[in-house]
């Protein structure tokens, strides 16, 4: 989905504030939420990591930007456990003593339809063009590289294709590639000649370049 989570390259954001000596968790509840996510994935096996990421991506964009990281995590976990029938939304709101926002539903038509890519189509030095795709479901190809041309600088092992795994499809393994883009290819006017961005992309996201 072309969601609020896909922030790379957006303009208008302000300063990045680094907190010295930052604790792992600022509040006790944050650690509990981190533990609940591990519970959902590893103990209850109620959902996988790709479904989890997508549940956060489906948050209302206004809520997403206003929420802290662990509030986003909490919202994603609660959404999935409600959708999977583990708990009810009404029960959560009753126990919380107020409104408990959850994410919007999964889109009806979700994934790009491509055939599995079992063997590596690219080698180091090959040119690749990122497909200009806009699936309604989960995807890990950022908007800022779609349609852009890059060069493969590393071939990584095969990993589960997230667009499939986030929507209950059978495990599908594909190579990912570290694809290097010149800043000028991505950002045209303002780009420096000695800046590059390397994005880790599954085979299905790419077309052979010329």
């Amino acid at each position: 989905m072309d969601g609020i989570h896909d922030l790379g390259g957006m303009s208008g954001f302000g300063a990045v504030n680094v907190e010295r000596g930052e604790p792992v968790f600022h509040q006790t509840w944050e650690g509990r939420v981190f533990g609940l996510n591990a519970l959902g994935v590893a103990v209850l096996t109620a959902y996988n990591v790709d479904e989890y990421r997508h549940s956060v991506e489906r948050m209302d964009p206004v809520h997403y930007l206003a929420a802290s990281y662990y509030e986003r995590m909490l919202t994603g976990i609660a959404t999935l456990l409600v959708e999977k029938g583990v708990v009810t939304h009404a029960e959560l709101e009753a126990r919380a003593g107020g409104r408990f926002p959850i994410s919007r539903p999964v889109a009806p038509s979700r994934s790009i339809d491509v055939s599995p890519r079992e063997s590596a189509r690219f080698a180091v030095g090959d040119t690749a063009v990122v497909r200009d795709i806009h699936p309604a479901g989960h995807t890990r190809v950022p908007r800022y590289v779609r349609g852009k041309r890059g060069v493969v600088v590393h071939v990584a092992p095969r990993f589960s294709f997230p667009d499939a795994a986030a929507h209950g499809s059978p495990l599908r393994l594909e190579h990912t590639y570290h694809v290097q883009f010149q800043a000028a290819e991505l950002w045209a006017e303002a780009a420096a000649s000695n800046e590059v961005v390397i994005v880790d992309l599954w085979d299905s996201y790419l077309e052979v370049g010329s």
Partner: protein
Amino acid sequence: MSDPRQRVSPAPVAERARALEEALVAKEIVPEGFIDMVTARAEQELSPRNGARVVARAWVDVGYRARLLADGTAACAELGFHGPQGEYIVVLENTPTLHNVIVCTQCSCTAWPVLGLPPDWYKSPEYRARVVREPRALLREMGLDLPEGVTIRVWDTTAETRYMVLPLRPPGTEGWSEEQLAGIVTREAMIGVAKIDVS
């Protein structure tokens, strides 16, 4: 129903977190002590001190450095650092003319075994939006002023590779022990938003 802009404010987030945990405990599906165990592990075992030991070893041992750059996963495991979010680690070597910096523009992916859970600034919309587009200006704002001649490589953690930057060893540390060196390596330097300075 779940529109956050509706007039009634949500319950406080700590209350929502408590509500979810209590609902699951009431269904008797939370193993005794599990949440405490996960939280303690995150706080004690997943630490940038681990990555600092990797960096210090690479600074003093050329053989280890070569293994680390050739196969980061195996070289980190040599020192005991492996596990979730560390299944495929690639180490990026800074040089006087090349600077590497890591981001996850879509969420928060980080090499947990060597960098620990990511800090808030790394997960912020500000960092995720800006570092791929204006890395030099953003790094300067964050206190890292790179000469114009230095090439910047920004690595977006969009799939399963987890990155770690191998920072430059600072001048003035000749003859330091590996332990002393590990003590000056910061998480920010291993992400690529700071350099290490002992002057």
